[in-house]
């Protein structure tokens, strides 16, 4: 079964995945109308920053067993056995944040959403774009990621891809065929130096 695979080293921090995710989870499913919806749709993928302000698309791993599911006081969190996706029933959710206390990745947020009872904040997180996949689309975050930081593939394929990449890095002579393009290496060095001034 295909899954969303995160390649953090390729994230450029553009946050397009966040915008696409919010639109995918909106009522109207179109950017221009989604931004006018009330409640405003929100992203379930969260681009956080690393130690050097590098981007990182943080999303639900759909753990098994899922700590959030075990911690849920109201039985709102469940697993769809067919897709192995951990889902939240907004009608049962009591917004207690017990799941946030359990989630080791910090990917659960609490807010109103169009498909929850009006005026009620509920827990929200990645649902693997189950609605989109049901009609043959790939997850929205993957669709818009142009640097391949998010891919949708068979886990086996992803692992092989990764292994090959590491092998190439190891076998390549220093400075030759570096996995990081020269310009990006330059930029990341410059950004580290900029940040370092704050600790001086």
């Amino acid at each position, binding site marked *: 079964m295909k899954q969303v695979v995160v390649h953090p080293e390729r994230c450029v921090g553009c946050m397009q995945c966040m915008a696409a995710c919010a639109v995918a989870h909106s009522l109207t499913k179109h950017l221009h109308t989604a931004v006018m919806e009330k409640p405003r749709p929100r992203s379930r993928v969260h681009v*956080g920053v690393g*130690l050097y302000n590098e981007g990182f698309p943080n999303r639900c791993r759909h753990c098994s067993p899922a700590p959030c599911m075990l911690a849920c006081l109201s039985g709102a969190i469940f697993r769809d056995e067919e897709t192995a996706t951990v889902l939240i029933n907004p009608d049962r959710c*009591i917004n207690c944040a017990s799941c946030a206390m359990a989630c*080791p990745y910090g990917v659960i*947020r609490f807010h109103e959403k169009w498909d929850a009872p009006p005026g009620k904040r509920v827990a929200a997180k990645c649902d693997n774009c189950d609605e989109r996949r049901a009609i043959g689309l790939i997850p929205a975050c993957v669709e818009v990621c142009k640097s391949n930081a998010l891919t949708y593939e068979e886990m086996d394929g992803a692992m092989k891809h990764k292994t090959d990449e590491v092998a190439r890095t190891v076998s390549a002579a220093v400075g030759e065929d570096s996995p990081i393009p020269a310009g990006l290496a330059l930029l990341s060095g410059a950004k580290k130096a900029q940040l370092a001034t704050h600790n001086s």
Partner: protein
Amino acid sequence: MEYVILGNGIAGVCAAETIRGLDSEGSIRMVADEPVTPYSRPMISMVLAGEVSEDKLPIRNRTFFKDLNIKPVLGNRVTGIDVDKKEVMVQNGASLAFDKLLIATGADPRPIKAEGMDRKNIFYMRTQAHVQEMLKVLPDVRKALVLGGGLVGFKAAYALMQRGLEVSMLITSGYPLSMQVDEAAGGMIRKELEKFGLNVTVGMSVEAFEGEGAVTGAILSDGTHASCDLVVVGKGVRPACSFVPGDQIDKDLGIVVNEYMETSVRDVFAAGDVAESMDISRQEPWINAIWPEAVAQGRVAGANMAGRQVPYKGSLSRNVMRIFDLDLMTMGLVNPPPDSEFEVITAHDQRRKTYRKLVFRQDILVGAVLINNIDQGGIFMGLIHNEVPLHIPKSLLAEPTFNFKQLVI
């Protein structure tokens, strides 16, 4: 195989499910005094508040017992255990033989010593039944007195305020939630509560209740009088294990278990609010009577009872609550002894209205208090629970931008 589970709270339920997952044949019997399908105890205050209807309380289907082929023995307290004969005695006179026994009887409210406790409209808040009783009298009361500034006290006070009552809270210690938070956070919480109309009095307890029949007031420890027509006592809980023979099964604060949730007697296990296990952050035996530990302990006990050796790492105190516009999350050891090896980092941002206190033992996070911006709290939990040595500056954890990525350079 004969499994007997005492208690149908979440620990017992999780144990039963785990056993059934590993052993489809064995007989499982569950004995419990509450004659209902398993329900979410932490949610009863939301029923009191009117935020959740009672039908949302059950955490398992009505057909739970049937689906898992469990024989329920409900409405019955256990009166004793014969360890040698491997039998438990039940209130109705029956005795049940077991090969493997789980004691998951939970805890009962800690009673208070005050005169006039027999007045009407004085309640504990522990069970669905307690809440049902309170709901019955709600239309006739105006002025509530909540004893205790702990979690139950808070939840009760919040619920009654939602119902439009005038609520006063008496706290014996110097600030609210003194078991869960430090003084700074306690102060912020108190301010928030008062902002929304709760009367909070610290360093005060009740000597006696007054009233003919129903309660009409209380005499406080400073001799003053407080009028009230409803009292909720929330002074903590104590393990429900009086029926356990202490000369055979080791008891301390609760029933002492080893890392497989087994008591000092072979084939007798304990889990949930009744069990005393090793506390990860305190590094000493402790009872953390909280829902997620009951789930974890029930699952571990169930696995071990069904013959699959699964160790339990230890327990950890933790709580999360939303107090009006203020979110509070607290975990592990938050008030370390002042001398000590512990390093404490605090960050109070007045503009963002956030507070973070982080307690470290060397490079390992052992406790945290978060006020607002609690989304990342689970990461702290993971760090504490897994005793992960930190390789990044500790101060980063106190910053609003802290997130998972910063741990995986």
